[in-house]
């Protein structure tokens, strides 16, 4: 099957193409520069005057795993406002804050997204994460496996096991959970909460293991680097949401000593304690630190106003935030000597001082980080807002006057506490393409996605230029997945099944001997039954695994 996409204005930062008119060819799902001359074009699309980018990639979105399903179960009243009807080609479901799996796939695709990555796969819950994602149509998917509060790792640290042993354990766990990255959430804090600790600062010791978050970050970031995983350690830091946590975050950046580290939903970790309400923006300080430290990347976790639900592995902080639950119901779970989760519905309000300033802090970070390859567009779906708000967020970044109009409507004291009005920057289309495509693919470690270059898979989004960027980005003209047309005029016309992206770092087999003993002594399943096999993803004939390259390991 040969497709010809004629004359679109192409934004492909991965190839250094910034708004050039270009014709693209797709042969059997992949881009090709020069199709065989005697090969007939099966279908041509005239894209003159249209904007062409690769399919967007959400590098941090909670789309698979137990806490998401708890979130769904917790708020039936939210689903009732957004029923999604079945069609001849699509399944029914529910939308809004925490959509059903099928609706998740359709709505992402309808905004031009072709991949999403679940950032918090508990090893023990990996099957669920992958089974849920297997029921998300169209999108490619994958995830980061959560470590750092698991008793096995903390026992290793207390026993002073060497870095090599930790590397083997991390690599083994990535394989067992079918992951492409490693995440740490409130390092050691989920574990400390089980011992009744209610906070854990960067240098505070877990009362049982006597291990600090700083040590956990150090060994995990080192492990990820040494086993060659391209996605840097994905860090949800200490003290999420706590006024004054900007200090902790800056210290975390300094403390990692130049190792690659990704700080996720950094907006929630950028708060000072100044002002009448003892809550202020640390956005400028954080952006300055990111600008200086080239080993650091961050996604923002922007909040947007309205009802949503927060679902996090951070039981410690979710428990301490439960008094803000709106509606007033919430769940926490301690999970299997592995991790935990907390689910708290939130309603962010523009007339609430804290929420309004959170909104401004996120935008400050977006606009003050200089390098678009090191900052990523997320709302930490659904925690800051549902992913369906992305077109609105893109407009806030690209349109200063719109942004200032919005700013003028939020809580007046919050307006006084942000420098947002003085920031003139407007993101360009090329920069948006970096944040949501090329940069995301590079950060996740995808070899052949996020680009329109020869050899890459043909995930393509075509938009009509519109000065109203929200309108432009919420309704693409066309979306192609692996070269198949799946969306026309912002509606799904055809469904496909994406692949699951993983990496397969190597480990020393001896690691499993200790793990087997540990599982037999303390766990509730056999180690052989804990590990996921490839056929669990592929046996239904729909799913597939795509293993990506690793950095060369010395």
């Amino acid at each position: 099957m040969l497709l010809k996409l004629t004359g679109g204005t192409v934004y492909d930062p991965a190839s250094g193409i910034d708004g050039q008119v270009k014709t693209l060819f797709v042969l059997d799902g992949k881009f090709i520069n020069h199709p065989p001359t005697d090969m007939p074009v099966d279908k041509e699309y005239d894209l003159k005057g249209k904007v062409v980018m690769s399919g967007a990639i959400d590098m941090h979105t909670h789309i698979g795993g137990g806490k998401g399903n708890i979130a769904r179960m917790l708020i039936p009243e939210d689903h009732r406002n957004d029923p999604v009807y079945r069609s001849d080609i699509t399944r029914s479901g529910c939308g809004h804050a925490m959509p059903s799996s099928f609706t998740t796939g359709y709505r992402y695709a309808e905004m031009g997204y072709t991949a999403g990555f679940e950032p918090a796969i508990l090893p023990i819950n990996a099957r669920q994460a992958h089974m849920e994602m297997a029921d998300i149509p169209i999108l490619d998917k994958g995830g980061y496996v959560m470590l750092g509060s698991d008793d096995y790792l903390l026992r290793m640290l207390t026993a002073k096991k060497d870095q090599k042993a930790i590397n083997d354990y991390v690599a083994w766990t990535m394989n067992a959970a079918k992951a492409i990255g490693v995440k740490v959430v409130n390092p050691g804090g989920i574990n400390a909460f089980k011992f009744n600790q209610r906070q854990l600062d960067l240098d505070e010791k877990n009362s049982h293991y006597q291990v600090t978050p700083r040590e956990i970050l150090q060994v995990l970031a080192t492990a990820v680097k040494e086993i060659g995983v391209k996605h840097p350690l994905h860090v949800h830091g200490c003290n999420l949401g706590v006024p004054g946590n900007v200090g902790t975050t800056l210290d975390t950046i300094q403390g990692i000593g130049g190792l690659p580290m990704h700080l996720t939903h950094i907006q929630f970790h950028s708060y000072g304690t100044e002002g009448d309400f003892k809550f202020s923006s640390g956005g400028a300080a954080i952006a300055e630190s990111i600008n200086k430290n080239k080993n650091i990347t961050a996604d923002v976790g922007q909040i947007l106003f309205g009802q949503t639900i927060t679902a996090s592995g951070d039981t410690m902080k979710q428990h301490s935030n439960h008094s803000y639950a709106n509606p007033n119901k919430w769940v926490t779970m301690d999970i299997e000597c592995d991790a935990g989760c907390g689910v708290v519905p939130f309603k962010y309000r523009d007339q609430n001082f804290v929420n309004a300033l959170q909104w401004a802090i996120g935008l400050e970070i977006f606009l003050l980080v200089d390098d678009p390859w090191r900052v990523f567009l997320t709302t930490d779906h659904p925690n800051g807002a549902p992913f369906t708000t992305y077109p609105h967020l893109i407009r806030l970044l690209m349109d200063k006057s719109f942004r200032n109009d919005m700013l003028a409507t939020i809580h007046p004291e919050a307006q006084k506490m942000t420098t947002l009005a003085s920031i003139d920057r407007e993101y360009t289309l090329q920069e948006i393409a970096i944040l949501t495509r090329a940069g995301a693919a590079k950060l996740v470690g995808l070899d052949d996605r996020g680009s329109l270059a020869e050899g890459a898979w043909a995930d393509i989004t075509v938009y009509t230029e519109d000065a109203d960027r929200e309108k432009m980005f919420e309704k693409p003209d066309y979306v192609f997945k692996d070269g198949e047309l799946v969306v026309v005029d912002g509606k799904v016309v055809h469904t496909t099944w994406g692949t699951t992206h993983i990496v397969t770092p190597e480990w020393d087999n001896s690691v499993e001997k200790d793990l087997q003993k540990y599982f037999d002594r303390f766990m509730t399943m056999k180690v052989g039954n804990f590990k996921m096999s490839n056929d669990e993803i592929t046996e239904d004939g729909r799913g597939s695994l795509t293993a990506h390259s690793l950095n060369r390991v010395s």
Partner: protein
Amino acid sequence: MTEITEVPSPFCGVGTDDLTVQVDGLSVKVTENGCTVNSPAFEQAITDTSARVHGKDVTLEEAVTKAADLLRASNQPIMGGCATDVNGMRSVMAVADKAGAVVDNMNFTGARRNFLALQDTGWMNTTLAEIKNRCDYLLVVGVDLEGFSPRFFEQYLWNKESMFLENTSNREIVYLGKAPSGDASTSPAGVKAKVLECADADLPEVMEVLRALVKDKKIVAESVSGIATSELRTIAEQLKAAKYSVVTWAAGALNFDQAELTVQMLSEMVKDINTMDTRSSGFPLGGKEGDQTANQVCGWTSAYPARTKFSAGCPEYDPFLFDSNAMLDNGEADALCWVQSFNTASVPPKANVPTIVVARSGMVFEKEPDVFIPVGTPGIDHTGHAYRLDSVVAIRLKKLRDSGLPSTADVLNAIEQAL
């Protein structure tokens, strides 16, 4: 004859995965770590191998066509039972979406007590490995735990080693409401569980007083439903003194009106204890007949638990209105597709509507259904996934023998295609 070790069970709800079985042709025998729940469930023989329409043997294709015809002719079909593995449940959802059916898990009326509490105020819960390693005080409310799960104490409480308890036999066990049926709860050191008995219907009052005592409220009455207030005060103090207490219950066993309020009361009590400078967690028992699997899969595909209707073209959830037994009794449904991959004793409810049964081989009917399609059992005849009671861990089920029986998903997918 082959021996297979580390076999996981979809039957007991706790996800036991240390069974050893011997397979000889089609015969399966549990040779190690069996129990009164798992051994008979694994060992049951295959009797039916042919599908039937009106009692006559037909090909699978003919049975599928007939089933699709019945569903197509129906204005409000029901997908009942929903006792199957993850793939089976995915297919139940696909058929329901296309046929406009009600999906109703057979245990939902019991599970509803939990969902109503969850959806009103939530909870703080835990999972099996946390119990095994941390729980120093177990309060069992209104359920005979060893009757529910014969090896629960052996596997998760009297385990020889734990990471955080010096001596697991020092764990304290207290029963509130129902007394245990045996001695499994007696510690290896010979200490018997404390039992404070009351009638099930008195549990709301007893739990209310216990929560009040946890919160240091003044209680004037000297006894509550036959239990001395001083005894309850002792439990309250022990819960607060424990490092990691666990309160367990089985929604299905709380068989009295408005039992959701009792679930809510104990869940809120657990939350209270967590504000008193210690930790505590709830632990709901369930997981049998695929109930957690049904709720999980229905949860991610529709966003609602497994009592959801699709006849409007979108999912609608109502834990009361879409009770399939009530709908059948009231004449609100006109076809039933009963899905039961695990348990041949779990026959469809008596109903005067066209009935399709997709069930484990060997089911015996008082009244032959219009269509019967025998299927293999997940974890015996084919691989699959099933959720255990804590709803977190999905176990990977093994294929133990080659019976040639289709899986539930195979059959339901064929019906969906034929619709």
